[in-house]
Structures are given as structure tokens and as C-alpha cells.
């Protein structure tokens, strides 16, 4: 059966994968549009890798449909997916020829891709001499050999230093800018802010959330802040009871273990942080610093992980 996906580069419907009695994926739906970076989040054992393996054609689904327009390429999570004894260029030529290219085309395309990922100078160096980051970029170059419509990126940055991770995200972001659909699997949840357009959150093989990053952040519980408060008496720091009296019903405050003048402030959606700071100021307290406790996406992640499946 041949199906044309309409506007999506990739559409997954009702995907089920069972291993014996265990259901690893349970009716997963997912859509990725051209030019979109779609983050796939979830705790360990959520089924992310199984889903990516099915989308890459490495495993078969038990039930469900996968439709893609154009070629799908995978950037695998492992480091050792290349032949370490031969050069990056020779690796790419080999894989390009397995994609059916003639030797001359394979060489030209490989050099082009090495240049695109910033490895032109290391083209003839054996891969065993590449750093982690270079190997990852070579992996991206290999995935681009066939001009994929969909790029599956499995945990590309989990073992990279910040500079290497930024470089990979920039590279993938540029590709998406050129119209490529990207499915970005990651455990580094904070990296999806200002990088991914949409998110699917998977837990126990089921989709718990599907939407934009902003919508995901809305899933986070009411935020908590660590505030430093002074009352003008250095020898008599403020007491939590007195601060709570000043706040009234605007927010909840409790002593922090971090220091005598530090407190944990819990606000709610209808009583924002500003109202709490104003209430404290009007009562004669000086709010010296305020920092969000935990990250919004991390909070949303934890909320979705602990949420009962609907």
C-alpha cells in the first residue's frame, strides 16, 4: 500500500510495538512538518529509541502506519558507528556507494558534506583520531549524503561538551531552516528551548503531550523561587512567619536551607511573582535576589512523568 503524506514530511498513526507480552509503544501518533524541529522527550524506557528505530526502518511496528515523503536518515546515538581505521572521507564514500552512488558521485558528495559539517580539513584523517564532537558531525554528514526529507537525530548531544552540543544544534537548525524535517530525541530537556518548534512527550510507550515548547512549559506546576530578603536589621534577619503575614494570600513562603536570609516562594498562576515582590516591599522588606527554583521544562517533564496516563 503506497500512501502520500499530505503536508507533513512524516506522519505516524496508531503505532504499536510489542515484544512478547510487553507493549513498548502503545498507539503513538506524531506529525513532523517540513522545516520543523520536533523534539521527542521522555524518560528512560519510554519507547523513544524503539520509535526512532521503527522510523529509521530498523525494526517493524506491530500495528500502525508510518508515512514519509522522501528519504529518512538517522544520526544514531552511539559513537562507534563508523569504521575507525579508515578516514572520514572513506567512510562517507563507502556509505554513499551503499546508497547507490557511483564512486565519482560518492566522492564529490562526501567532500561536500564534510565541508558542510566543518570537517573538510580532517577528511583524510582516520576516524579513530576524531574527537567525540567530530565523530558526531561526521555522523550528521553521513545522514545528509542522500538529501533526506526527514532527519532522525537520536541523543546527538548527550555526551558532548557545551561547545560541541551548540555546534550540532546550530548545524541541525540550519538544515531545518532549509526545509528539512527533524525529529530530535534528547534527554537534555533544557536544550529544546529556543531550538525545537514542537514536542512529543512519551512515557510508558504512550504520548503524554504533543504541542509547542511554550505549551509544554505550561504543563509545569506553579513555579517556586528562591528569594533573598532583608529587613534592615543585619543581626535580626526576617522570619518566615512575618514574611507570610506580609504576603497574605499572594504567595506561600518558607525558610530555605540555603541561608538565614533565603526563602522559598511559591506563587500561583493568578498571583504572579511581581505581586509577591510588591507585597514584601510595601511591608518594608528588601528583595535582594530572586531565582527560579528548577527549570520550567524540567518541571513540566517531571509533571508529565508522574501524571497518570489518561
Amino acid at each position, binding site marked *: 500500500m503506497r500512501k*502520500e503524506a499530505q503536508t507533513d514530511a512524516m506522519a505516524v498513526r496508531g503505532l504499536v510495538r510489542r515484544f512478547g507480552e510487553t507493549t513498548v509503544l502503545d498507539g503513538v501518533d506524531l506529525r513532523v512538518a517540513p522545516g520543523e524541529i520536533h523534539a521527542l522527550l521522555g524518560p528512560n524506557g519510554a519507547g523513544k529509541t524503539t520509535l526512532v528505530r521503527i522510523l529509521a526502518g530498523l525494526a517493524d511496528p506491530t500495528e500502525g502506519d508510518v508515512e514519509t515523503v522522501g528519504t529518512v536518515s538517522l544520526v544514531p546515538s552511539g559513537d562507534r558507528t563508523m569504521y575507525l581505521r579508515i578516514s572520514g572521507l572513506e567512510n562517507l*564514500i563507502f556509505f554513499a556507494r*551503499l546508497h547507490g552512488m557511483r564512486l565519482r558521485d560518492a566522492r564529490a558528495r562526501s567532500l561536500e558534506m564534510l565541508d558542510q559539517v566543518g570537517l573538510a580539513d580532517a577528511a583524510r584523517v582516520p576516524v579513530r583520531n576524531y574527537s567525540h564532537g567530530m565523530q558526531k558531525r561526521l555522523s550528521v554528514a553521513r545522514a545528509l549524503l542522500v538529501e533526506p526529507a526527514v532527519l532522525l537525530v537520536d541523543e546527538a548531544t548527550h555526551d558532548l561538551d557545551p561547545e560541541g552540543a551548540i555546534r550540532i544544534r546550530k548545524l541541525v537548525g540550519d538544515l531545518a531552516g532549509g526545509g528539512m524535517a527533524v525529529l530530535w530525541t534528547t534527554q537534555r530537556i533544557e536544550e529544546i528551548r529556543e531550538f525545537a518548534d514542537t514536542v512529543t512527550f512519551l512515557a510508558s510507550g504512550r504520548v503524554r503531550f504533543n504541542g509547542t515548547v511554550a505549551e509544554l512549559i505550561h504543563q509545569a506546576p506553579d513555579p517556586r523561587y528562591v528569594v533573598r530578603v532583608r529587613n534592615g536589621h543585619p543581626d535580626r534577619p526576617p522570619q518566615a512567619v512575618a514574611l507570610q503575614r506580609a504576603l497574605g494570600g499572594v504567595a506561600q513562603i518558607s525558610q530555605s536551607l540555603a541561608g538565614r536570609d533565603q526563602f522559598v516562594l511559591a506563587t500561583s498562576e493568578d498571583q504572579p511573582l511581581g505581586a509577591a515582590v510588591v507585597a514584601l516591599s510595601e511591608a518594608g522588606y528588601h528583595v535582594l535576589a530572586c531565582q527560579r527554583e528548577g527549570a520550567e521544562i524540567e518541571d513540566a517533564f517531571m509533571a508529565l512523568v508522574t501524571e497518570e496516563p489518561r
Partner: protein
Amino acid sequence: MSVSVDRVGPRPAGLSTAALPVGIAKLAAFVRRDVRITLSYRTSAVATVLGLLLQVLVLSWIGKLIRPSELPEFGGVHVSYMEFVTIGMAVNMMAAILLYQVATSLRNEQMIGTLESLLCTPTAVWTLQLGSAASSILAIPLRLGVFLGALALFFGMSYHLDGVLPSIVIIAAIVPCLWGIGLMLAAAIVTFRRGHGAMGVGTAALALSSGAFFPVGVLPGWIQSVANVNPLTIAIRGLRDALLGGTGWASVGTHIVELAPLSIVTVGLGTLAFRLALKRERRNGTLGTY
């Protein structure tokens, strides 16, 4: 229940529509890869040659204890033990390399972590398997030529040159047999992950009953029965007839007729076992794991 995986769209740019069939071009890519990897292990290649030379030296001294009259005749000619044993060694060396390559090619890709990357390309598992052994197969005549040539040069052994072509034909005829046996071993290794021990026992049993190191006639009766259907025995006898006995093409047909049914049986069984093993791995989604 509905299951479908559709990948729709244009083929990538640069795809070959040229005269060379894509499958052969892919095999050529494997050969290029393996030659380059082999060249990166220069020390290992030197060590292999040295080990082989030491083995030949040991056998040459043993050969001084064995009178040619105690060995079978080939083409009505008595040969020295060195001539007798080096043909056996050459065929066994070829068989061991071929069996190892066929049996462990997928496993090796699993172990170094490249199998899933290979499976992401539009390449059939059979092509991966054949491709990984292709360079070894192509190198067989070269290896045998160098080995026997070095023996002629350094140990003064002489061969009938008109037996070279018939020998190549016999070697070509034994490759399907070894391929079939290799597929059976590959099926076991893909399924059980570890099978090198069993493969060692298998290749040793083949070598023992092949008559490579001593005449089949000195073996116990039941092993002689096994030896009669051992493809190595047939090939070694054929090469000795052609290269030592000078029988030329006379006995080649007989050896090919002996090898043909063995090829059919081993390739048939090997293909079946390997298919079943792959089907099981795909069903479990574990082909890329080790």
C-alpha cells in the same frame, strides 16, 4: 490491524543508473573498504605470514621423517611429505578464511557498532554478508599463489604448471560448499551471539578429516566415511592430482561432480538457517544489538 511503512519520494541525487549493476557496485564498495582496513593493520599481516612460515618450517622437519612411499600416489607419482602437506595447508587456509568471513561478517559489524548504520542504507542483508566476505574471496587465488610460490622458491618444491587452471576451477567449485557451511555457522552466531568456539570445533573437524596433514587411509573407518563427504577432502585430492600428479583436466570433472551435490545441500541448508535466524532477529528487533 494495519501495519504499513511507506517512504514516498524521489530517489536521492547522484544515484547510479549506469551500466554497472548497483549490487556489484556495492560489493566493490565493500572490497575497497576492506582493502583499506586491511592495509591499516600492516603488523598483523606480517605476523600472519611469519606464523605461516614457521608452520611450514615445522612441517618440513617432520617431512624428513616420512618416506614418500608411505604417502598415496598422485597421477602415479610419489610425492614428498612437504608437497603433500602444503597443498592440504593451502586449501585449509583458504577454507578457514572463507568460513570465518562468511560466518562472522554480520557479527563483526554488530560488535564494532556499524551494523545498524549499514541497515539504514538500501542494502539487503545478503549483500552486506556477501560484501563483507568479497575481498577475502577475491584474495584466495592471490594468497594461494603467493603461498605455493614461496614454497617453490624457498623449499624447492615443483608443481605442474598445467595444473594451475584446473586447480582454480576446483577451488571455485568448493566455494559454494564453504559458503553454505559458513551460512549455517552465521545463523548460529547471529542467533546465539557467541559461536566462535563452535566454529573453531567445526573448522578443526573439517581439517582433521580432510587428509590435509596425513593420508585419509590412516584414519579410523568412521572418520574415513566422513572424509569422503568432506568438501575439503575432495578439493585437496583434486589439487594434489592437478598440481603434483600432473593429471591436468583429467580428474577435474570427477571432483566437480563430487562437489556439486554437497554444494546444493550445504547452500540449501545454510540459506534456510540464515533466513530463519534473520527473521527471528527482525521480529525481535535485535539484529543490531550484541
